[in-house]
């Protein structure tokens, strides 16, 4: 036994992972608040266009498939990390991030075309809540991409340090969480919004 009372590695990882789950739960509450607001305001178009007129479902389905693929590859990231396979880990991480960038680009494109057609967030309560709900998810994806870049950098310079591996695992949790939130956005915003009521 060593001569120092030190927090052992397993305990550190356990509490970090647990703490991150707790954080994800609070983020869930945040999205719950935004979803509730969207649900209340989605019919308040104030004479402006409704979701039925605005949403292009094929476009959004492509977005969805891209994000789902990135989530699958993110699973491979975590597996490679567990196998300590640096080559694959870095490669998969890069693909995950790249798909994230494409997803985000498509979302920005969608937002831009809406605004250019004169349907900005200032048009109606419906559009305000749409932009903020979907945009908050997009902001999370953006944070995820930055996080992914930092992970690449840390993997390159620090290698398989336990703390870096823990962060890979947390990144995986975060990315899957965003995926789950997107499934809800896809269902409640785009699919339900596409129904002509």
């Amino acid at each position: 036994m060593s001569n120092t009372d030190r927090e052992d590695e397993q305990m550190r990882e356990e509490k970090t992972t647990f703490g991150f789950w707790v954080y994800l739960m609070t983020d869930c509450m945040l999205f719950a608040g935004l979803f509730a607001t969207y649900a209340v305001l989605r019919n308040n178009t104030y004479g402006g266009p409704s979701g039925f007129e605005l949403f292009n479902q094929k476009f959004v389905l492509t977005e969805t498939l891209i994000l789902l693929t990135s989530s699958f590859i993110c699973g491979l990231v975590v597996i490679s990390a567990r196998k300590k396979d640096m080559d694959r880990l870095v490669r998969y991480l890069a693909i995950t991030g790249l798909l994230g960038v494409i997803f985000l680009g498509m979302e920005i494109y969608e937002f831009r075309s809406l605004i250019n057609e004169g349907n900005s967030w200032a048009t109606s309560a419906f559009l305000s809540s749409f932009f903020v709900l979907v945009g908050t998810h997009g902001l999370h994806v953006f944070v995820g991409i930055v996080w992914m870049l930092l992970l690449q950098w840390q993997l390159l310079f620090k290698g398989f340090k336990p703390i870096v591996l823990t962060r890979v695992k947390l990144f995986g949790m975060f990315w899957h969480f965003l995926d789950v939130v997107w499934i809800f956005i896809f269902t409640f915003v785009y699919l339900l919004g596409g129904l002509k009521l």
Partner: protein
Amino acid sequence: MLGLLTNFAHLSGKTDPVILGAQIALIGGIIAVALVITILGRWRWLWYEWLTSLNPKRIGVMYLIVAFLMLLRGAVDAFMLRLQQTIGSGGGEGFLDANHFQQVFTAHGTLMIFFVAMGLMFGIINLILPLQIGSRDVAFPFLNSLSFWLYLVGVGIINTHLIVGGEFAATGWLAYPPLSGIEYSPGPGVDYWIWSVQIAGIGSLLSGVNFFTTILKLRRKGMTLMRMPIFAWSVLGSMTLVLFTFPILTVALALLALDRTFAMHFFTSSFGGNPMMYINLIWAWGHPEVYILILPAFGIFSEIVATFSKKRLFGYTSMVWAIIAITFLSYIVWLHHFFTMGAGANVNAFFGIATMVIAIPTGVKVFNWLFTMYKGRVRMSQSMIWFIGFLFTFTLGGMTGVILSIPPADFQLHNSLFLVAHFHNMVIGGVVFGYMAGLTYWFPKMFGFKLHEGLGKAAAWSWIIGFLVAFIPIYMLGLMGGTRRFEKFDPSLGYHPLFVVAGIGVVIIGIGVVLQVTQLIYSILNNKKLADKTGDPWDGRTLEWSVSSPAPEYNFARLDEVNYRDEYWERKKTPAADLVKYKDIEIPKGSPIGMFIGIFAYLFAMAVIWHIAWIAALSIVIISAFVVARLNDDDIVKTIKASQIEKIESSYGGM
């Protein structure tokens, strides 16, 4: 100097003596403190020992200091409000016009809840919780420091308008739209309010994650959940509520800010916006918030009653279940804050009944405390005086709460002074008395010496009597039809005499505050005489009393297993005689990054309030850079040598 002052008066738009006084007090105070530190040559000490510390005991003390300063500002606001209403109900003009009166009560409410009550709560939790659960630290020490700095940023933002001039929100402490929207409040006042509360709220949320994880993951070996001290249980309930409700506050404030800054239409009265959505969101946070504050106070009283009755706490298990029940129920009652806003009879009935049901677990707790005292060897120390005061006033407030929870009664009483009296009854009689009792009880553990008994008892009695004299008349005025938030009442209404009585009550509370300050100064000056050398001044029962006062930086030299609920009480019965060899202990190093992030969070808020986009964007980039720097830093622990620990441990008579 004189030119500078005129300049500030000019910036504030008018030479209002009240505003000018506040400016001089604030700026003078900051300059005076900086001068004293410079003269004493204590900047280095302040920087290394306090500002950059990740030690929860240091962070806790900083919370307490800031919270007390804000308590003084909030109290000055309260005096101004009382004085104005006393004059204004007798036919006089008073010294505050309607707009200024509204700003003062908005600031008073915001300060007292967010920066006084929350600050005291997190201060006490930081100082005591890790010790009680036998841990050396919190789960995430850096996050803890960041939470503190974000809280301080909130304090900074809410006080900024006093320095730079301009207005504060005149909307009430929860800033209901559409009044708080850009159309009806075009100035920066509401923005100050939003960003002050938003940033402090994010700090509280991070604290919630931190302490929730600490309690569930860092308990000493052998301390099962059902062996955990009740204070720790109450903090667990409170932090659970933080996790579930503060994100909703974040959303509500963010959407209001988007309405104001980017012309969105969430809560506007046109373009399909729905102000009721804000009111639902803000109260879905706001009601649990009062339970976030009161649950730790319940926990504090449970510790105090058991210790000063020299008895095991009566009904531990029912106490735990009462906490769990209150945690759950407090989440499903928010609608009782707006019964009159047209949700319909059935909805109102559900929320009314849910509200009444909370009285049951609360009643369980009250009876448990009484049964703990029954046949105990009760010592009427100053903490117990606070407890007795709490028991009477809180029960009174609980009963008026049940009255208000009956929807038909609420239709008569809503928006009246009866409501004002009710929630002050809960917050002063419950939260303030609870935290005062806790601070008195744990003061020796925090600072190494006790507070003077006589002065403390006199202060407690002044608070209790002053509270009753100040707020019973407000209840009566509410029943007479007095509406809240008015700076003047027509003298023909006959409110003046009761307002005068209430004013006298506030003076008595003021005497209590003066006595407390005297007590603090007296005790600091006589700290040798009042010193606590044993670490266990009250014959305590839980683990925090098993270490020296104040606790060493590493909290516990040894991590012995826990076998009982009142672990330290049992250990005292059979003192262990074995000599142990101490080991080196690793603890986190200090870090200034929390403070740096705080500084740029402040800059960000100011940039948003004043619509300077590039500074806001730059602040975000810099904050991210600091986060990355912290994540990339591997050199984050320092070691305390075993020899040093032996020296510390043998310097007090502990076991």
